[in-house]
């Protein structure tokens, strides 16, 4: 049967397989100019920018959830963590980010997003975001680069802006693979989460903005609390695997993000440390950051050291560690709770449930399981300053894009804007791709629906949650998870590699009992491939660049002579190998790479 692509408003629907039998799947074929995969922080801004630049352009967002509350911003936000306040410049910002990332970042990328940040923040304020002001009417500072906001409603605000700009939104379709045609990206395939259809969306240009990956490692909490994690448990690394499977070049997966968080409830600590001036103390009451990391700035040390520090305290018997909040007045505690309600309400409930008053007892902290993301760290697509990936026709923005840490919300917005601008500029040279390959489409459908077929035909197998747990255990124990103080050596990584290869062989036994499990099956398949790339990156970097994030027991020193460079990778879908390559570091901004200021 022929698949005819029609305009997005006239959706066509055809069925492949045996006479609409249960095990068949139907195909929804759509056509657009610019496809944005992931309608989150970066994706919504990309949509607005594209429509404003090119009002006639058909812009389509493919979103796994519903753009009103999807992704990291689901519960809201209470600060914009990257902003260039008066007295600072994009250069001073880049200098700081370089210091924070221990001397190795893509300075060209950091600079380019820094130049957009203030403009994009003002734009979102114009859409209705309440930004707090000081007495002079300037944005209220919360630390050197931060602005306090009332951001509970932030996600609906930017989602509405995307709709108002005229973007088409297809909610509840999870991207599963890129559509490839003649060596370029020609759109994407997705699983209809509600209708269990295969979506084939053909596009001239595609922006991937699916966020980073959680759930690669065993989380801090397990059982009934296993999703009590900081990063969105629903950002499962799909954007990385779309690119990996199509042969895109990735960078810095070894720079894992381990966040310093409130123990158990895993709430962000920036609200406490920056917003309320709480220093870290150990069980003996010592301000260990000030003592042991004085050269780096004590409590102002680079982010990896601020998690490495307390983890070492615990390891060496001086834990638990705390953020000391005992100086807070009752009014400040109230303000603190109000700030959390805008972003992470469960900590307020947690304190009320356990009778915790932060003005009377210090708040216990811990490191999280490692996340893979390019927003706080720099794991992601290797891109040029226009946010073009190495695959023609594909752009990346937000946590899925690599090389530029310290993005947070505003940097993700900036990248969405930059990626959209590049895509719009490049469109004249990107012709409408030919009709998708029917064989490719069928193969993708077979791949996605295999776990459902297994349930129908065999009736037993591996549940996605079982495979997820297994993967997380392997990564935790052998690739530097929470239980091993994030440390690793070549031998342990080799064991991880071996187990992951074996798990890969188990994918064919994945079974989905219902549509939700079918989605979960895709998620664990994605997580597994991300994990494999992470391990290869960790194996390759033979130094300790980012203590905590990447601690090699067998190479404990930072080694600028040999390792001041990026570790990149390309996955070969045919052989299943992750090939590693190295890319040089380039300095664009003057100054000592290990100093926060000139």
């Amino acid at each position, binding site marked *: 049967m022929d698949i005819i692509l029609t305009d997005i408003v006239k959706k066509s629907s055809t069925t492949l397989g045996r006479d609409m039998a249960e095990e068949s799947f139907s195909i929804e074929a759509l056509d657009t100019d610019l496809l944005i995969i992931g309608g989150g922080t970066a994706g919504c801004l990309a949509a607005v920018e594209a429509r404003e630049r090119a009002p006639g352009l058909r812009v389509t967002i493919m979103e*796994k*959830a*519903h753009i*009103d*509350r*999807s*992704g990291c911003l*689901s*519960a809201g936000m209470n600060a914009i963590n990257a902003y260039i306040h008066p007295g600072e410049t994009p250069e001073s910002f880049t200098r700081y980010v370089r210091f924070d990332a221990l001397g190795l970042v893509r300075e060209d990328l950091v600079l380019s997003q820094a130049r957009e940040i203030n*403009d994009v923040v*003002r*734009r979102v*304020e*114009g*859409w*209705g*975001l*309440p930004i707090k002001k000081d007495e002079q009417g300037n944005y209220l500072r919360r630390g050197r680069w931060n602005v306090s906001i*009332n951001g*509970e*409603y932030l996600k609906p*605000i930017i989602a509405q802006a995307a709709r108002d700009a005229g973007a088409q939104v297809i*909610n*509840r379709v999870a991207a599963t693979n890129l559509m490839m045609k003649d060596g370029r990206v020609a759109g994407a395939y997705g699983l209809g*989460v509600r209708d269990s259809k295969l979506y084939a969306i053909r596009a001239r240009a595609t922006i991937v903005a699916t966020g980073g990956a959680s759930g690669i490692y065993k989380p801090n*909490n397990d*059982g*009934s*609390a*296993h*999703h*009590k*994690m900081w990063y*969105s*448990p*629903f950002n499962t690394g799909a954007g990385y695997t779309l690119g990996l499977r199509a042969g895109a070049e990735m960078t810095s997966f070894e720079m894992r993000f381990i966040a310093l968080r409130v123990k*158990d*409830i895993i709430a962000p600590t920036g609200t406490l440390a920056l917003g309320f001036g709480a220093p870290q103390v150990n069980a003996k009451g010592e301000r260990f950051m000030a003592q042991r990391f004085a050269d780096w700035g004590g409590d102002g040390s680079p982010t990896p050291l601020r998690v490495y520090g307390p983890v070492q305290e615990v390891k060496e018997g001086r834990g638990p560690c705390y953020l000391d909040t005992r100086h807070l007045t009752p009014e400040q505690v*109230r303000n603190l*709770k*109000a700030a959390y*309600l*805008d972003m992470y*309400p*469960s900590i*307020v*409930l*947690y304190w*009320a*449930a*356990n*009778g915790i008053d932060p003005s009377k007892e210090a708040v216990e902290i811990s490191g999280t399981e490692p996340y893979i993301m390019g927003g706080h760290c720099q794991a992601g697509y290797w891109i040029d300053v226009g946010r073009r990936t190495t695959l023609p026709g594909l752009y990346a923005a937000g946590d899925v894009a690599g090389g530029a840490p310290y993005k947070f919300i505003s940097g993700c917005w900036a990248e969405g804007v930059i990626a959209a601008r590049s895509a719009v500029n490049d469109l004249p040279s990107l012709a409408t791709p030919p009709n998708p390959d029917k064989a490719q489409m069928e193969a993708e459908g077979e791949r996605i629906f295999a776990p459902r077929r297994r349930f129908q035909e065999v009736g037993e197998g591996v549940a996605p*949650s079982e495979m997820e747990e297994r993967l997380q255990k392997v990564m935790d124990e052998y690739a530097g998870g929470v239980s091993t103080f994030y440390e690793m050596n070549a031998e342990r990584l080799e064991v991880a590699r071996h187990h992951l290869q074996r798990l890969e062989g188990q994918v064919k036994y994945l079974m989905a009992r*219902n549509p*939700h499990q079918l*989605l979960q099956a895709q998620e664990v398949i994605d997580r597994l491939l991300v994990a494999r790339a992470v391990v290869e990156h960790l194996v390759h970097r033979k130094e300790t660049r980012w203590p905590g994030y990447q601690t090699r027991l067998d190479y404990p020193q930072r080694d600028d002579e040999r390792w001041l460079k990026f570790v990149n990778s390309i996955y070969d879908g045919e052989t299943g190998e992750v090939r590693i390559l190295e890319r040089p570091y380039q300095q664009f901004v003057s100054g000592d790479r290990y100093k926060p200021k000139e």
Partner: protein
Amino acid sequence: MTVLIDKKKCNSCKGLPEPRCVQNCPGDLLSLGSEDGKAFIWDARDCWDCMTCVKLCPRRAITTKLPYVLADYKATLVPIAGKTSIRWTLTDKEGQVEQFESVTLQPKKKEARP
């Protein structure tokens, strides 16, 4: 972490193509029961506790519950979301009540764009 859904209060947002909670859960965790037609959660363990569904439920049928492994029994946190602000009522396990209100949306401004 999870949410509790009061089946007596849930009317599955009659008249809407999908109940608000089902439509908006960022993790696709909610669905309508095929037998009783009421919202349910596929797997209680998988909730991230963003409270989206709790804020959106017009009948206040959904409450957030912290897993017992993390938190004592009895405290509650109830949001009431208005058009431009949100009000929270926090009750600790001793029954002490605290209220918070925060602005969520301000009037749109004409964009001054370069």
